[in-house]
């Protein structure tokens, strides 16, 4: 059984006709073609699918699409619309952060949620906000440096 829902993705209203229980991740990727949000574990363990729901970082893989209807969702495709997002993009380029890149959308969205709420986080606050995002390439040191650099810039 499908339902007609109106989603607000990166500032635009989008109508979808999907099963209400479908995880937001798969609506973004398979229905809307926004493939910047990645599937990692499917159980909210790794953070690869992180997006913003009304500014807070959430895991799209365990969020039913019905829970986000008529609320603001921001994905990696809309990162540049956020003040913190633009600063982070520049810092990510300066510090040459990504290696394979798979986790980086989620890393950036978690970092953007942190800086929007707390523009000058301590190292401990960065670690705490980012410890839910796994990186198999081990880019943690550069991620931390880029967040600091974006906060200073």
């Amino acid at each position, binding site marked *: 059984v499908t339902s007609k829902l109106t989603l607000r993705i990166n500032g635009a209203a989008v109508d979808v006709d999907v099963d209400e229980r479908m995880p937001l991740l798969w609506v973004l990727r398979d229905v809307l073609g926004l493939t910047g949000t990645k599937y990692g*574990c499917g159980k909210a363990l790794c953070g690869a699918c992180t997006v913003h729901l009304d500014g807070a970082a959430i895991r799209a893989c365990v969020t039913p699409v019905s829970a986000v209807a008529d609320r603001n969702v921001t994905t990696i495709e809309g990162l540049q619309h956020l003040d913190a997002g633009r600063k982070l993009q520049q810092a990510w380029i300066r510090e040459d952060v990504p290696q394979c890149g798979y986790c980086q959308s989620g890393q950036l969205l978690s970092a953007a949620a942190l800086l929007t709420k707390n523009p000058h986080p301590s190292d401990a606050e960065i670690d705490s906000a980012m*410890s839910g995002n796994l990186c198999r390439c081990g*880019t943690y040191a550069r991620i931390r440096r880029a967040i600091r650099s974006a906060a200073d810039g």
Partner: protein
Amino acid sequence: LVAEVRVAEQNLRVTRLWLCVDVGCVVNPSGIDQQLRGGMVMGLSATVKSGLTVANGAIEQTNFDGFEILRMNEMPEISLDCVESAASPGGIGEAGVSIVAPAVANAVHAACGIRPLRLPIRSEDLQQGATT
């Protein structure tokens, strides 16, 4: 590679890693830094966290809840140096991975006299008199 660890009440925490490599002539310093740090993070995950077990012919771990890897808040401080060299450039991919476990195990021995003999190093392996 040299490791610094803290062992307290059977809890192991790796606090610092120092690595010096000779890659010949350094072509891409940023790439070397990425490969080595990434390799050490992966090697350290295998040393202190990630283990696979087999039951009935199948691996039991299916996701990151059973197969944990290092998170940002568990990162040790890492210092990295390259020997200055004019020799032909060599490969550097994965060089950081395999040397972490022996360095950490040696540091554990120096800290508390126990030689861990399996990976990952588990809390029960750090008991006085434990045979691993």
